[in-house]
């Protein structure tokens, strides 16, 4: 398989200005996007993939997708200087060839000359995103941004602090067997709800650890996999999505997993009922509850009941999760734990998790990552994997 003849460039637009005084960087990105869409004869809502580099202010494509009101389920923010955008065409063509998206937008924009005159730097990586001035005065930090999501979920669905606590309890049951875990003591629901309140309604034990460390993953072609001695894990399907504040139509009771999950399940040809083990990003207990609902492990609003009574504990419940102890007990390297989610799923599929938490006959597993903030804008990524025979 190659990209040859599988993708077409349908619209282009070059900004006419050479000094963009009076325009912001997000605005310039939107202007070139609009120009290219008009050239192609397409509309904004046709776009399902967005590619940008370091000239976009904020966290990769998150803030700019929100500015433009894009709903995308494919994205890439490869930053390799001026070559980025040529590489983006390749990446977009690959995604289209694979059937992952149909209309990809690539943008570059900036205003270094206007910045220099105004003594105001918004060069790549330098300036704040458009949302910044409207949020920073109110001191959004990670804990209160997840707290607001939890508060609303409780309000709409009756989710309780005790139900959230069960997520941490399950993680602690697993972490006791992990010699590297930061927190190895098994905790109870009472321990969690009696721990100090950090930001309503999240207690200290609703929050993940802060840790150093890291991880790495090697992905290979089938012919390489066939030559290797160690057990390999087959990639079955994946999905990704960006969720944001949608121009002020705010709903914090769901995550981007609502869109990334179905894409991954469809590609893998499996359903939530087929998943024997799940690594679910657990920055906070509420992150797990909303994600499980959005991935379809239970109905929306039923996540609290689903995680209660040990349902996530390996050997006890229906859906063993984060058997390394997860971010809540094991580690959260450099405040972004996505790769550890893949690693523990691989251990489970290889049958190499700790014997006390190894899921018997683990043939299909899922790993889900959440980046950014559940309370504003986030990237969501779902990966479904199987054993070599899956």
């Amino acid at each position, binding site marked *: 398989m190659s990209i040859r003849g599988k993708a077409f460039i349908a619209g282009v637009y070059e900004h006419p200005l050479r000094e963009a005084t009076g325009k912001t960087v997000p605005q310039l990105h939107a202007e070139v996007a609009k120009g290219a869409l008009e050239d192609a004869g397409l509309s904004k809502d046709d776009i399902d993939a967005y590619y940008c580099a370091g000239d976009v202010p904020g966290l990769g494509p998150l803030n700019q997708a929100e500015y433009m009101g894009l709903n995308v389920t494919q994205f890439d923010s490869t930053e390799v200087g001026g070559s980025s955008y040529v590489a983006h065409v390749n990446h977009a063509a690959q995604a289209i060839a694979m059937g992952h998206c149909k209309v990809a937008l690539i943008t570059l924009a900036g205003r270094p000359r206007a910045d220099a005159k105004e003594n105001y730097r918004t060069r790549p990586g330098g300036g704040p995103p458009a949302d910044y001035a*409207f949020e920073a005065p109110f001191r959004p930090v990670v804990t209160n941004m997840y707290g607001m999501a939890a*508060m609303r979920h409780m309000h709409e669905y009756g989710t309780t602090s005790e139900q959230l606590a069960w997520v941490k309890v399950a993680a602690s049951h697993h972490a006791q067997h992990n010699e590297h875990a930061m927190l190895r003591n098994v905790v109870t629901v009472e321990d969690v709800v009696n721990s*100090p309140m*950090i930001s309503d309604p999240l207690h200290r034990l609703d929050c993940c650890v802060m840790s150093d460390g890291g991880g790495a993953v090697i992905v290979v072609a089938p012919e390489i996999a066939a030559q290797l001695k160690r057990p390999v894990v087959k990639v079955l399907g994946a999905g990704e999505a960006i969720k944001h504040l949608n*121009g002020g139509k705010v709903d914090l009771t769901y995550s981007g997993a609502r869109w990334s999950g179905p894409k991954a399940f469809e590609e893998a040809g499996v359903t939530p009922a087929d998943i024997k083990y799940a690594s679910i990003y657990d920055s906070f207990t509420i992150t797990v509850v909303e994600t499980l609902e959005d991935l379809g492990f239970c109905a929306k609003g039923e996540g609290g009941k689903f995680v209660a009574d040990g349902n996530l504990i390996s050997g006890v419940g229906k859906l063993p999760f984060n058997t390394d102890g997860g971010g809540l007990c094991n580690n959260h390297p450099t405040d972004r734990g996505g790769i550890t989610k893949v690693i523990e799923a691989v251990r489970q599929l290889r049958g190499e998790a700790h014997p006390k938490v190894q899921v018997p006959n683990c043939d299909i597993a899922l790993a889900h990552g959440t980046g950014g903030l559940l309370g504003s804008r986030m990237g969501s990524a779902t990966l479904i994997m199987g054993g070599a025979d899956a």
Partner: protein
Amino acid sequence: MSELNGMNRPSKVRAPRVNDETKGFWDATGEGKLLVKHCNSCGENHFYPRSFCPFCFSDDTEYLETRGRGTIYTYSVMRRTKEPWAIAYVTLDEGPTMMTNLIDCDFDKLEIGQAVKVAFIDTGEGTAVPFFAPV
């Protein structure tokens, strides 16, 4: 005036960085007005204000003055700090939901759905930041 007036106000409010796209919004705050953006093409209101409508991508947008009233969509009080503060999203009567802090109130008596009104705090630089207080 309520006895809660002045309660839980931040000790300092930094002036926002204003740019050409948002100058109209911040200038209005200095006059005690809270604006959202209205799209003349699709009729939707949006927040934070931008040149392009995030719903239909038209660039035919203009400011709309709000009543400065709304209800609490959600909130969270940061407790593990010397000066706790209540971050919130408030849904304006005109539609959009915006991030803010709740002030002039008892943090233990806040409720989702509670009616609130804008309470600007001056930055000392010709602008004001839109906080909200229970009505």
